[in-house]
């Protein structure tokens, strides 16, 4: 019981620390891509900026627009944050550094993170704002569509590892990282593209497309509720990168450095690539996005899956 509570506290602490770091890092990365400096005033190169932002958001007036559907609107931020926190339960940071090595680990993560979409749609619907509604609708369509290639690519990995447990998947990569195996390299690409869409990041950020929908589903949120969406976004980004690390890049395995460091290096490396992509590419249109999911990624993932099966049986 005590160890569980301690693990819980550590996980929660890590989540808030990680998302704060990611917010600062994203601002710095974007700034340097755009020939700016980014935050510079609060602390060394603005490292304390996220704390200043968090304090500001906590102290802000919590505005409740009069026409919102109150219950739905209030619950939405929690429906977004809680699943992403829950996903941390079975992410292996190291050999023994995992809250609970479920034997259906990856299935569990996929299942809980899918709940997050409910929160986004609730926010879009409950806000009673047309931009929010459009954002929520787009989001629902997008996440459901991309779930399919995402899961198909994960299934390919599971076929090679022979287990759904995250630790077993890492163990299966003791000799060779999965990304270097023929079918799994394709699966990795499909996974990364779908995962980017899953967390609504550019070029797939249509649910909150600023130039079209102002701020999409969270247009009406302010203060700490807005911060919830923000934390959830960065936590989700961490999760998809952590999954990619575990499934394809050998998890915490690596020479010399301690496992947890290897895990974080790989995960933040993927996050950096996601940021890089975000600040470089324009956004695709909503129908093009659907086209990519159903006409390109899903067939590729299916063919890849069949090929993997053939390879394994051969």
């Amino acid at each position, binding site marked *: 019981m005590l160890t569980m509570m301690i693990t819980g506290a550590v996980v929660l602490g890590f989540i808030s620390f990680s998302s704060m770091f990611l917010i600062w890092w994203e601002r710095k990365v974007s700034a340097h891509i755009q020939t700016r400096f980014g935050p510079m005033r609060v602390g060394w190169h603005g490292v304390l900026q996220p704390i200043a932002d968090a304090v500001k958001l906590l102290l802000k007036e919590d505005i409740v627009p009069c026409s919102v559907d109150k219950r739905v609107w209030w619950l939405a931020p929690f429906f977004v944050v809680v699943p992403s926190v829950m996903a941390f339960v079975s992410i292996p940071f190291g050999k023994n550094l995992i809250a609970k090595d479920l034997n259906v680990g990856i299935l569990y993560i996929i299942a809980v993170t899918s709940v997050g979409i409910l929160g986004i749609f609730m926010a879009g619907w409950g806000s009673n704002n047309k931009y929010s509604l459009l954002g929520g609708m787009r989001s629902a369509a997008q996440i459901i569509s991309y779930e399919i290639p995402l899961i198909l690519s994960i299934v390919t990995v599971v076929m090679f590892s022979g287990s759904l447990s995250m630790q077993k998947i890492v163990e299966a990569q003791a000799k060779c990282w999965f990304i270097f195996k023929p079918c799994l390299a394709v699966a990795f690409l499909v996974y990364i593209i779908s995962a980017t869409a899953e967390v609504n990041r550019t070029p797939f950020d249509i649910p909150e497309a600023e130039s079209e929908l102002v701020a999409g589903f969270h247009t009406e949120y302010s203060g700490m509720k807005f911060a919830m969406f923000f934390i959830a976004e960065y936590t989700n980004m961490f999760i998809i990168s952590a999954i990619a690390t575990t499934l394809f890049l050998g998890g915490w395995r690596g020479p010399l450095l301690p496992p947890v460091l290897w895990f974080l290096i790989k995960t933040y490396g993927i996050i950096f690539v996601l940021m890089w992509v*975000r*600040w470089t590419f*324009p*956004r695709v249109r909503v129908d093009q996005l659907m086209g990519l999911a159903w006409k390109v990624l899903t067939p590729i993932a299916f063919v890849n899956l069949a090929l993997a099966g053939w390879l394994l049986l051969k």
Partner: protein
Amino acid sequence: MEVNVISNDRDLYSEEFSINMGPQHPSTHGVLYLDLRLNGETVIDCVTHIGYLHRSMEKIAENRTYTQFIPFTDRLDYVASMNNNLCYVLAVEKLMNMEVSDRAKYIRVIIAELNRVASHLIAIGTFAQDLGAFATPLFYCFREREKIIEIFDEICGNRLTYNYMRIGGVQSDLPKGIDERIKYFIKYMRSKVDDYEALLTNNIIFLARAKNIGILSKDAAVSYSITGPNLRASGIKWDLRKDEPYLVYDKFKFDVPTGENGDAWDRYKVRIEELRQSLNIVEQAIAGIPEGPVTVKPGRIYKPPAGEAYLRTENPRGELGFYIVSDGSACPYRLKIRAPSFSNLAVLSELVKGVKVADVVSILGSLDILMGEIDR
């Protein structure tokens, strides 16, 4: 409120959805209000409402002397102030039958073309921004625009509203050493234009978002009196600098780039090519600038003879025209401004029918309108 039913099917009842884009919206380029009616995400109809920035410039002109009105023209197309200044002073000079010195003409060309580069940079940057390229191209464009603004700052002391052109010449001669800076800028800018092309032109997402979007046919372009890069993108080779040369444009060698399909991508591409052509013009003008006075002896108050004059120039956004009626007094009797963005915006509701909401934004961005000169 009246509701239009799209489908009255028992299983799939659906209604029209109306959405007010603007006047406060991140991508309506100023205070423009689009009244959109949607079927899901597809646009059925779009009504543009303008007038939020109306400052009654034309009426103000009737109470100002000819010189006093120059700073007001800065506020028309405020990212191309020099070009507005230029068109206005040329119109007054035409009314007065005034001839300016060669040096003044060359300076005017250099300044106007540099301002065109600055203006097109904003057009390209904001267009990419509208497509969702999170501010990165915009920042690059602003970085280069800053260099032009610094040059203008040194020339006339202002950064946005320059008030540099004068009736009969320009405010002051070019400062010493500025030609070296401009030459350096041309070299620098050429490499940056290549960078933009590398970042955007053949980017697969950019192509998907801009190709075959908002196709403006030749006929539609002419019937809506579209001008400037938008017209040329539709494939009509019409540039006042070539077809009705003013100042000393006939002395320079430059091409008039045109598009083929008249889609958003062509409009972007034409602007990119125009950046290069403008740099060519500036380079030739710097090389051939003669010595001499920059202004004819300035009068305190100009009183043009009674009569009227219309003059149009090629602004970055199209043909800007000033129609001035004089009754022989110190102020214009009537002044009418023909703003290119006004016509360019008028075609919007035609172009957006049947496209997705996201394309409304990209079409609007590709038309490159500016509310300052629409509302005047």
